[in-house]
């Protein structure tokens, strides 16, 4: 990769940053400073806009570069990820999107507080949401650091650190100044860029093989060095039974975790009605499904065009497969086409990280200000004057969350953090989803059940990861020198998700006070009809 690629990629990325900063300034020029405006963008986005924004929030650089790279290296096993990421949206569409839109105002905890005692459930759900967000944020920001090292030749630890700080600072500016409105427009711009880049690359791959998928797959299998095995599962997860169970655990976390991700839930509040929330999810399922289908073509395309070995030489986890493919499809290294296409892909990947990071920061600042701060610091009596103060707290929280994430990402930048995304999904599926489903569907669910459910999913998920081989007891662990490993799996989902559901049930059964029938009636009527919805 020569200097031309780098400077062009940097110019394109700077254009993206300039455009998004322009959007932020434009939309925040006459801001009201109300909570409705800051957390939910005034609730006036159209389903189409919100659908693109949801897709933008969800499709991270890990999907774009990581999944295609996994397919290029391991063939079919990479595809298993994309299926989990997509099928998860049916849980969101059927059980969560419309009901959450009707019941809540800004966060997950709002839905619970509608029928439970407010203080304990807000603290529990706020803590779980912040945990999920911070895990996901650190993964994305370390990813930003690695990306700059991958794409800009000669970038050392210094440049990576500056990239992490730069991405963190930019996202704080976006979120603190522009709130949900600016964040949403950034997601939309990013989703359009990402889809455009993926479509262009897919068309080029298919043209190379004259539209013949069969030839593409056969060539990929030949050049992978694995033959037919490349097109069947087993190359990555076909080892021992522990590895297989680990993947089942991850698959469970992926499919159930999406519906508990705070930055996805908060997107449903940006549209005026539940029907609009449904239509935005339908748009995003179309976009996300199309995108993952294209990553499959790109992954097998990279294996067929470049060969798996060439991809592995460049980066052992395959993250450079798509940029290298772009270089080749554009006409090879040194050609104008190759330079331009490589730069476009690199800029899209940077933009992707920036947008995802902004979305998560906003969601976690909402959890901190609206759930945790509001509950811990404020007296029970509500006064009109506090409306402004909550938004101020949220802006400060965005800065604080950004600072914590930058610090953690700098500390973690040399560690293997690939497990963090899976862990964030596992925590979301164990701590957030059970309580949400119980609150929406179970008449007898009580405050105690809610609190037990959140902590009963959150604590085991975190503890099991601390005791897992990703933290200690293996050569690739965070502390390779220590060994306090007790739990064999890298992903805790298969244990912690059932525990979250079980504890919610146990807590409810063990409650001395019965569920409040009137508040359940109000929640249920509101969830299904929208009566009295914000």
């Amino acid at each position, binding site marked *: 990769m020569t200097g031309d690629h780098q400077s062009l990629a940097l110019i394109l990325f700077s254009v993206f940053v300039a455009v998004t900063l322009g959007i932020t300034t434009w939309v925040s020029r006459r801001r009201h400073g109300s*909570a*409705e*405006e800051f957390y939910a963008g005034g609730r006036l986005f159209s389903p189409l806009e919100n659908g693109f924004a949801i897709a933008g929030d969800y499709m991270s650089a890990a999907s774009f570069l990581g999944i295609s790279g996994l397919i290029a290296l391991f063939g*079919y096993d990479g595809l*298993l990820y994309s*299926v*989990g990421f*997509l*099928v998860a*949206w*049916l*849980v969101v*569409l*059927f*059980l969560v999107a*419309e009901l959450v839109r009707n019941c809540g105002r800004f966060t997950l905890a709002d839905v619970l507080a509608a029928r439970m005692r407010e203080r304990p459930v807000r603290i529990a759900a706020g803590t779980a949401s912040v945990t999920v967000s911070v895990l996901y944020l650190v993964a994305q920001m370390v990813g930003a650091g690695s990306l700059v090292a991958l794409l800009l030749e000669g970038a050392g630890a210094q440049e990576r650190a500056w990239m992490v700080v730069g991405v963190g600072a930019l996202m704080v500016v976006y979120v603190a100044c522009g709130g949900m409105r600016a964040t949403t427009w950034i997601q939309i711009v990013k989703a359009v860029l990402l889809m455009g880049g993926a479509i262009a690359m897919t068309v080029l791959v298919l043209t190379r093989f004259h539209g013949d*998928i*069969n030839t593409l*797959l*056969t060539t990929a*299998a030949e050049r992978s060095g694995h033959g*037919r095995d490349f*097109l*069947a*599962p*087993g190359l990555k*997860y*076909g080892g021992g039974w522990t590895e*297989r*169970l680990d*993947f*089942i655990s991850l*698959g*469970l976390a992926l*499919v159930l975790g999406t519906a508990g991700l705070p930055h996805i839930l908060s997107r449903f509040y940006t549209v005026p009605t539940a*029907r609009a929330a*449904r*239509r935005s999810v*339908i748009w995003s*399922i*179309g976009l996300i*499904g199309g995108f993952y289908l294209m990553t499959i073509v790109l992954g097998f395309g990279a294996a067929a065009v470049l060969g798996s070995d060439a991809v592995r030489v460049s980066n052992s986890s395959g993250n450079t497969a798509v940029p290298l493919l772009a270089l080749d499809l554009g006409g090879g290294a040194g050609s104008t086409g190759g330079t331009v296409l490589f730069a476009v892909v690199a800029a899209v990947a940077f933009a992707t990280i920036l947008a995802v990071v902004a979305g998560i920061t906003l969601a976690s600042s909402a959890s901190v200000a609206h759930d945790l701060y509001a509950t811990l610091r404020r007296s029970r009596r*509500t006064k*009109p004057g*506090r*409306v402004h103060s*909550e938004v101020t707290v949220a802006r400060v929280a965005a800065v604080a969350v950004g600072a914590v994430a930058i610090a953690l990402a700098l500390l973690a930048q040399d560690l293997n953090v690939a497990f963090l995304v899976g862990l964030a999904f596992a925590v979301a599926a164990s701590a957030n989803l059970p309580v949400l489903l119980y609150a929406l569907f179970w008449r007898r669910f009580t405050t105690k059940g809610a609190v037990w459910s959140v902590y009963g999913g959150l604590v085991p998920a975190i503890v099991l990861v601390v005791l897992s081989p990703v933290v200690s007891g293996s050569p690739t662990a965070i502390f390779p020198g220590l060994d306090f490993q007790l739990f064999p799996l890298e992903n805790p989902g298969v244990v912690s998700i059932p525990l979250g559901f079980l504890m919610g049930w146990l807590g409810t059964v063990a409650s001395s006070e019965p569920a409040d029938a*009137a*508040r359940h*009636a*109000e929640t*249920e*009527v509101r969830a*299904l*009809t*929208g*009566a*009295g*919805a*914000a």
Partner: protein
Amino acid sequence: MDKHDGRTAAEPEVGPLDDPWSDALALRWDELDYPTDYGYETHAASAAAPVPKPRSAEHDEVYLAVQRSAAFQEVRRRYRGFVIPATVLFLVWYLAYVIAATAAPHLMALHVIGAVNVAMLAGLGQFITTFFLTWAYARHARLRRDNAALDIRWETQELTGGNLR
């Protein structure tokens, strides 16, 4: 309902001008410039007297009555009648797919035609069923649920004055 009785008892002199609809119309949910947080006090003060306050006994009674009503039970039955079987279906299908891929890769590697094997068909099948169920859910909600739910929404909000918790 009691709110009308309460009103006529409290303000009998208003007489025919006091059309109960005017309050409901003035308090249409989308026109409300409601406070951006839980400022009930201001809201309740601006609302006309007969509207039950949030978390009051009358407010609760409205929701309990709506929940018991046949119209609401029908909406809930239709919603659950679709999503529960559909959720069980796609979760079982997805788990079967993941377990087959990890536990029985040889079964998945069975050759079908050209470069296509069982695994490819199953993976593509997951995409197709996801798109199909999305379409089916949207259609079911639009045709079987939306209008009935909207009617209940307006009726409930007329009874409660659209107040928020």
